[in-house]
């Protein structure tokens, strides 16, 4: 490169004049183009491209306590408005959703607290959020009954985690539930590490009942061809990752296995790449695996997902406007007789 090539785009200073909408603020961030502001503005652009691309399937990978912190309705609304096509998440994410769907709550708390006293009161802490043990115990009881009902209905069939998620969603009535929204919109929710959550211990409770005739069976491998098929049938794929861990790896691995590679990628994380862990791995690094294409529109935003993700969603929803209606590519394919799900 020549020297002048490095000096093409001057930083435009952020100007706050009067009231700004979220997207107007993001445009100011884009003008700056620097540090976290520049990355956040780019994340809005990449997500907008994903949803406007009529041949792109949008994956949302969720880890961390996004539901306890208050992002449940944001995600359920994205599902209902077809701005995500597939969710891949931790078991805990959907356990937290089920807790609220069945009448429980997460409470604003503090990280400056006597944790031994919390233990004595049977209150669990997620940083500065509190959740009472009884909310877990009540879902243990209620979901164990649902497990029995599902097993009886499916008559010994081995379910994949996405089939399991829809069976739960069908039985939850709360309109703000992600599980319910996904069932209604027929958006698959893959929970690859389903047993690493309360769902696993509920299964233990359910299977422990004497003379239990109908024990629910989940098949961890059944979902692998299902998610790979979604990737391979989509001309283009995009992922939005909150956190990382198993959900991010599952989406990226499906992209490798189906020999597609992501065309769009937004990762929101606080993790660092130096440890070699996947959650902090850079998108540049993912290119070496073929998980994300070299030419993909991609950006990693280093920040608290609870701040960053709602800003991205608000900005993109504002850009799309109220008249925007998206029919997912795979839904159109299915309508044309080309889909298997």
């Amino acid at each position, binding site marked *: 490169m020549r020297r002048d090539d490095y000096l093409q785009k001057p930083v435009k200073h952020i100007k706050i004049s009067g009231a700004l909408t979220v997207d107007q603020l993001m445009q100011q961030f884009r003008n700056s183009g620097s540090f976290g502001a520049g990355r956040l503005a780019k994340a809005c652009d990449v997500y907008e491209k994903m949803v406007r691309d009529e041949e792109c399937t949008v994956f949302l990978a969720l880890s961390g306590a996004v539901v306890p912190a208050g992002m449940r309705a944001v995600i359920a609304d994205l599902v209902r408005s077809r701005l995500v096509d597939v969710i891949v998440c931790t078991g805990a994410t959907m356990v937290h959703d089920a807790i609220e769907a069945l009448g429980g709550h997460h409470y604003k708390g503090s990280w400056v607290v006597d944790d031994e006293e919390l233990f004595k*009161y*049977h209150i669990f802490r997620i940083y500065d959020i509190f959740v009472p043990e009884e909310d877990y115990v009540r879902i243990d*009881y209620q979901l*164990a009954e649902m497990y029995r009902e599902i097993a009886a209905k499916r008559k010994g069939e081995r379910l994949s985690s996405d089939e399991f998620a829809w069976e739960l969603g069908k039985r939850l009535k709360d309109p703000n539930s992600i599980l319910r929204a996904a069932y209604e919109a027929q958006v698959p929710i893959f929970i690859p590490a389903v047993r690493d959550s309360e769902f696993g211990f509920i299964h233990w*409770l359910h299977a*422990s*009942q*004497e003379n239990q005739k109908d024990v629910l069976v989940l098949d961890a491998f059944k979902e692998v061809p299902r998610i790979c098929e979604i990737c391979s049938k989509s001309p283009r794929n995009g992922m939005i990752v909150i956190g990382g861990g198993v959900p991010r790896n599952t989406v990226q691995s499906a992209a490798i296995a189906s020999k597609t590679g992501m065309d769009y990628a937004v990762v929101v994380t606080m993790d660092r790449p130096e440890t070699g862990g996947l959650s902090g791995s850079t998108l540049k690094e993912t290119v070496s695996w073929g998980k994300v294409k070299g030419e993909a529109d991609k950006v990693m935003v280093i920040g608290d997902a609870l701040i960053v993700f709602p800003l991205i969603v608000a900005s993109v929803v504002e850009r799309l406007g109220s008249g925007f209606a998206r029919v997912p590519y795979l839904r159109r394919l299915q309508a044309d007789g080309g889909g298997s799900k």
Partner: protein
Amino acid sequence: MSEGRFCGNCDGHNLYEYPMKMFCSKRYAKNKDPIVDTLGCCDDWEPVTQECYCVREALKQQKSKDSGRRD
């Protein structure tokens, strides 16, 4: 365990309605109603490994309920 043997200080106790009701997984496994009184007890009782306030608070609540009745 100064309070004696109660569901609320049994090692298998899970909170159902603080502090008066517990969920007993042992009873659930036996297809019995798993919701029990914190101040109840049965032959399967095992000492709790880490103390909580359930029994203390349940006894306090029980006492105030009883004294309320006398008033």
